[in-house]
């Protein structure tokens, strides 16, 4: 019986032990090796990590219009590229406006942009709660609002009004805000950024790549151009110019090339490392468009059209700075091109409709794909700021000042070669408007602006109509069908889709 007593005592002791409140904790198994959202960001160093993360979005493949450079492909500047069958069903329809709401890429771009929004909202919502250096805190928030402004600007141009998310816990169903509301958010974010960010020169060199006052002003100028608010466009473009922070690269190809990375012309640039893989610091934007075949730099999408090739003024060095032809030698590398891509494609009448060539704007020195991942995309160049200033000034009846800026761009393009690209002298508003517009095409070709420039200036129907553009429909992309389905009908499709 003694044994029984011992055993019973032992047993009941253990039993009671477990009915104590200590047992409640037994069921707490927090994630291991990972922070949860409730515990981050809570310190000054967390705030920095969260702010840094807002820039990481800009290097994501999907951030670049869903992966493929569909904006240029839709425009009259570029065709699908790669070999004829590659991504024919996925990317091909952008070339002739036969896309539909389930088109490949739309959903990726949409959802990736919201990943970016969420990362910004982490900063705008959580960093203000952290007790830390107030100046730094303000800068972090301004950096995040800058990136958020960029993203909603992409949204509003691509789709018009979209669900507006500025908090971390949006409802599961959220209707589209109006186009105005999105623009207001963009302007509010960028204005806050412009007012609170340091100038580029005020940052340490290790912080290069962060949002600056100059970048915010430049984007405000662009936003106002889209709104046809030329007064404000002029104001912000001139603010960038008068800041003295920027200048044109002496050599045109450096404006997008490796030598000009972090150079004076880069108003806002996405820094990247020459490693295969976004997680390794690479950016596939260049690789997607890189020379296909030999050397193998990439997939070869976004091929300059015959129309673009032929539109350059005689002798314009920017032609060579925009188009890589087979046989060219760049940085010591001979371009041989792709075996599965015809060198020349003719239509049934024998007219040449496509020539195998590649975008020079993403070229980086090297002969393998990894180095092509190191291309640093310029989201804002000083040349663009000058052209925006010129456009706004012309619209505001200041042609003389406008000429100054547009001719700065032409002068650089001239590269010191006599007899080409003479200064523009016309002061007639309409004529100058066209000249500046044309200058934009040649200066900024293949950089993703042409389609939107055509749309915002009302030229889209005339220029892209022959390609399939329907006025009243193709100014905006269709809301991805998967999003409409996912919203259970809360999202309403754009007109005519």
């Amino acid at each position, binding site marked *: 019986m003694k044994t029984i007593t011992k055993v019973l005592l032992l047993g009941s002791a253990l039993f009671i032990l477990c009915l104590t409140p200590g047992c409640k904790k037994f069921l707490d198994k927090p*994630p291991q090796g990972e922070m949860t959202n409730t515990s981050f960001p809570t310190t000054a160093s967390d705030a920095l990590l969260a702010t840094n993360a807002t*820039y990481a979005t800009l290097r994501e493949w999907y951030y670049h219009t869903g992966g493929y450079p569909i904006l240029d492909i839709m425009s009259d500047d570029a065709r699908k590229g790669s070999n004829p069958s590659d991504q024919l069903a996925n990317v091909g329809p952008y070339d002739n406006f036969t896309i539909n709401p389930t088109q490949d890429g739309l959903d990726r771009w949409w959802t990736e942009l919201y990943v970016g929004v969420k*990362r910004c909202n982490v900063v705008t919502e959580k960093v203000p709660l952290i007790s830390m250096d107030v100046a730094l805190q303000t800068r972090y928030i301004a950096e995040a609002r800058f990136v958020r402004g960029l993203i909603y600007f992409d949204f509003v141009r691509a789709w018009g009004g979209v669900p507006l998310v500025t908090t971390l816990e949006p409802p599961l169903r959220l209707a589209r805000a109006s186009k105005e509301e999105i623009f207001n958010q963009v302007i509010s974010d960028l204005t806050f950024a412009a007012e609170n960010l340091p100038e580029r020169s005020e940052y340490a060199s290790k912080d290069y790549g962060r949002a600056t006052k100059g970048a915010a002003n430049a984007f405000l100028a662009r936003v106002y151009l889209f709104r046809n608010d030329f007064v404000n466009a002029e104001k912000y473009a001139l603010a960038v110019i008068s800041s003295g922070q920027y200048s044109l690269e002496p050599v045109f190809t450096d404006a997008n090339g490796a030598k000009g990375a972090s150079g004076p012309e880069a108003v806002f640039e996405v820094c990247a490392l020459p490693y295969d893989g976004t997680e390794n610091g690479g950016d596939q934007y260049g690789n997607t468009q890189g020379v296909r075949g030999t050397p193998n730099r990439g997939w070869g999408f976004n091929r300059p059209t015959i129309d673009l090739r032929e539109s350059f003024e005689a002798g314009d060095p920017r032609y060579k700075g925009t188009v890589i032809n087979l046989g060219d030698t760049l940085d010591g590398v001979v371009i041989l091109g792709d075996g599965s891509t015809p060198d020349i494609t003719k239509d049934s009448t024998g007219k040449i409709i496509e020539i195998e060539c590649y975008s020079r704007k993403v070229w980086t020195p090297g002969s393998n794909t990894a180095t092509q991942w190191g291309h640093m995309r310029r989201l804002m160049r000083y040349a663009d700021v000058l052209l925006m200033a010129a456009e706004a000034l012309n619209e505001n009846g200041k042609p003389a000042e406008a000429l100054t800026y547009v001719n700065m761009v032409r002068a650089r393009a001239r590269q010191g070669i006599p007899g080409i690209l003479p200064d523009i002298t016309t002061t007639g508003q309409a004529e100058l408007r066209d000249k500046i517009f044309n200058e934009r095409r040649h200066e900024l070709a293949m950089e993703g602006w042409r389609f939107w420039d055509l749309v915002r200036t009302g030229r889209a129907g005339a220029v892209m109509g022959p390609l399939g553009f329907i006025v009243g429909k193709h100014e905006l992309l269709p809301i991805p069908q998967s999003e409409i389905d996912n919203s259970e009908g809360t999202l309403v499709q754009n007109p005519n889709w």
Partner: protein
Amino acid sequence: MEEKHLPKRKDFTKKARLFLTVVLVISSFSFSLAQTVTGVVTASDTKETLPGATIMVKGTTIGAVTNIDGKYSITVQSGKAVLVFSYVGYTTKEITVGKQTVIDVSLDSKKTNLDEVVVIAYGTVRKSDLSGSVGTIKTDDITKITALNPVQSLQGQVSGVQVTSISGTPGDNPMVRIRGTGTIWGADPIYVVDGVILNDISFINSSDIQSMEILKDASATAMYGSRGANGVILVTTKSGNKNDEKTVFNFSGEIGIQKLAKKIKLLNGHDFAVISNEIAPGTYNNVDAVNNTDWQSLIFHTAPIYDIQLSASGSGKKNQYFISGSYFKQGGIIDKSNYQRITLKFNNTYALSKYVELGTNINLAPFSQQIAPDVTWAAYRAKPTIEPYYSDGSFAAVEGVGNPLAALEYSNNYRKGIRGVGNIYGSVNFLKSFTVKSSYGIDAGYTKAESFTPKYAVLNSDGTTSQQNNPLSDLSKSWEDNLNWLWETTLSYQHTFGKHFVDAVVGYTMQDAKSETMNTEGKNLIRDGRDFWYIQPIYIYDPTQNVNTISSFKNEIGDYYSMISYLIRINYTFNQKYILTGTFRRDGSSKFNEKNRYGNFPSVALGWNISREKFMKPAKVISKLKIRTSWGQVGNDKIPYLGQYSTVESLITVLGTTPIPISAGSYGVNGNNDLKWETTTQFDAGLEAGLFNDRLSAEFDYYRRVTNDILIYLSTPGHLGNGPGSLVPFNAGSVLNRGFEFNVAWRDQVGKVKYNVSIIGSTLHNEMLSIGGVTGADSQILGGYLANGSFVTRTVVGIPLGSFYGYKTDGVYQTQAEINSSPHLSDAVPGDLRFVDMNGDGKINGKDRTNIGSPIPTFMLGLNLGLEVYGIDFSVSTQGQWGNKIFNAKNAVRPDPYNFEQNVMNRWTGPGTSYTEPRASFGGNNYLPSDYFVQDGSFIRIRNVTLGYTLPLKWSTKIAMQKLRIYVKADNLYTFAKYTGYSPEIGSSNVTSNGVDYGIYPVTSVYSVGLNLTF
């Protein structure tokens, strides 16, 4: 005739003999009333005498053993003495001596014991008192199949249970489904080995198992609460027999040869050249002069399999023990694949006093494994026109798929580890009816894997490198450890008041599990030999990345959860006729957020032993008749522990005028803190009958299981910021499984011939009842992805889980005119498959894809025959299933010139040449997922044929054996199937890829000889 104190020892020392003699002399003097009883002990079934049977005088240590003729003699002190007759495998009998001097005893074989005891959750119950649906398989049937995992033995043996091999890779575990497929993630049952809850039982040797009980209905499984929804398999391992006061040794050894059961019929070199020329004229100049390589013959060969077990069991005065060791080795029919396992088992009970018992069940199982690269698909695709080697003996490049022989040559992939599962327990019996039992069990494992690939290159004939090219040697290693402990304390009460019998148990359990992994990878090892397979943190240049890399290292958590549970069961029987069982379990799990932390799982069951009613007395032919019904709710908690949490994602941002990577972190994909377990509500109605003195026994069940809140990963609205392709788990679906099960057996004896026939079968209706309701786009679950990115399964409401999805075909276009006259793909040409315009919109496009078959069988059957005569035993088990389809995915992707299956020889080559086989092509429209690739998955398999011979006892005892049996057998002897692949068993651990044959390691046929000894 000898009389002595037991246990008998052969090595009695002289002292002991002297002591014994003294004791005997004293005892015979002291009790003059002693009388001598003699007799013969026989077996009731075979009528043979039983030498070596034990006769004990109850309550004493006096005993005797029958001699070779089954005769015994024993002296008892009075007529009140009770003799206890026992023999291994037979029911013990007690007889009061009275005035008898000759007592002949016939012992019943345990196998024929009608009212057997069934193991259930946290206890046992007499079969007649059982109100739930429980299938049982005993040791003899468990050991029939030579397999690593004892669960293989359930194939075709228990109704409602589907066991399907996922592959024949030595060491792989099969897919197990009990009563259908109840969920998308984790549809396998749980296992409870001697009270320890586990996810698999591959660490147990079949010979160590006494019985497996398959708990099927809610009444049986609800005691396992949030884990029982997909069924529970209770495994009871062997223990020492109280009556075996001598140590009983058992040896079983088996050696077998495994063979590829069937080769796939592929084209030979000549035919392949002919077809290639048809597709791309001029590929082969002379089709009669091409090489013919049979790649399948090159990679498959026969391989041995061994399974040896030795056990010792018995009991002492206060203890019972079962100790065993086993060795299992399975060679692979593909080189560089094999598995070996040692098991050590110690089951002991120790009686501290009459009321207190301590016990242990300990299993230790070290294993090692070599894993071959996946070369079956390469052998299937490789062109037969390519010779495996160049003239200089080096590996030839094989376009598109790589040379399978080179892949084997350069593969070095090993895994080893140890699994320890066991528990210690103590139980106290008090106030007669109460027992408190507390058991602490653990499941601990450690696994190490290493894989080394040397620097090598298989060159194309022009000297350039082919796709098989590893410019830097690389070594990866990983370690995993896990510890899972379970502490369960139960209080049980058993009492009979007149006609009332109450059996109740209440309990409290705690469980905690954690596993952790570590992976590291290094490149460019200084030497290739195994002595150099260690990783150092040195920088090396990686030309593929154009960067210096350092050995990578990663350490992560795996499983991590804890549970607290409360349980109760009351089993009430009135007059042995009416049975009421109620169970309830409350589980708390760390996997769920506090608001969903606890779940309640109730069940009730009723049973009625009609045959015990008076009005059944006249129906003498009916020896047993019982009806029973049950209802209950059971859960499934197999969800990732992190599912409820929104975690912070680590990112890299690049900044600086000299750009460098810097750390960043932000919110990643949202978790779902509303997650909870899946709940299965099951209704069951069953009937059990025994006729003709139980020679015919039958059991029928109908069940209906509806699983709600099944875990589905859904895409969420983009504005939540979860990103492209990100899926979040939701409890967002429900599945129905219903069916009939039957189990009919006839066993009888005609003269010396004992025979039995049993047939088991089950029907299954599986249907997705709802999906989504959280996010609108997710009215479907896609799966079965092929190498070309297309998917071939799509689950929607109203059809079985993981149903195949694609175009319906209606023959082959014969002429262009025929194409023009009907909806067609824009680039269709004569000889192409004609896809059906399902939605009738006049176009053929993705919208015409439809449900083209289910991978889930609708009917399963097992048929077993057994025969015993003159010591010869013969048995045949067959197993079959019907109604399921297989998607022949390995045949459905052919972007490059891969070899074809032979059906291409019947291809369309011009109008009228074929109406079923399209023209030969590489890629193109005919490779869009369609029912052309869907094949009938029905089969009947001769699962096992065994022929054995047991030496008559009178001979075996001469060589000191109680039993000596030799046998020959064949597993998977033959399969009748239409399917063209290696085996129609195409399982998958992923419900949405079930039945999709990507080209698996084939399941083998095994021919073996074996020996069983008991001594």
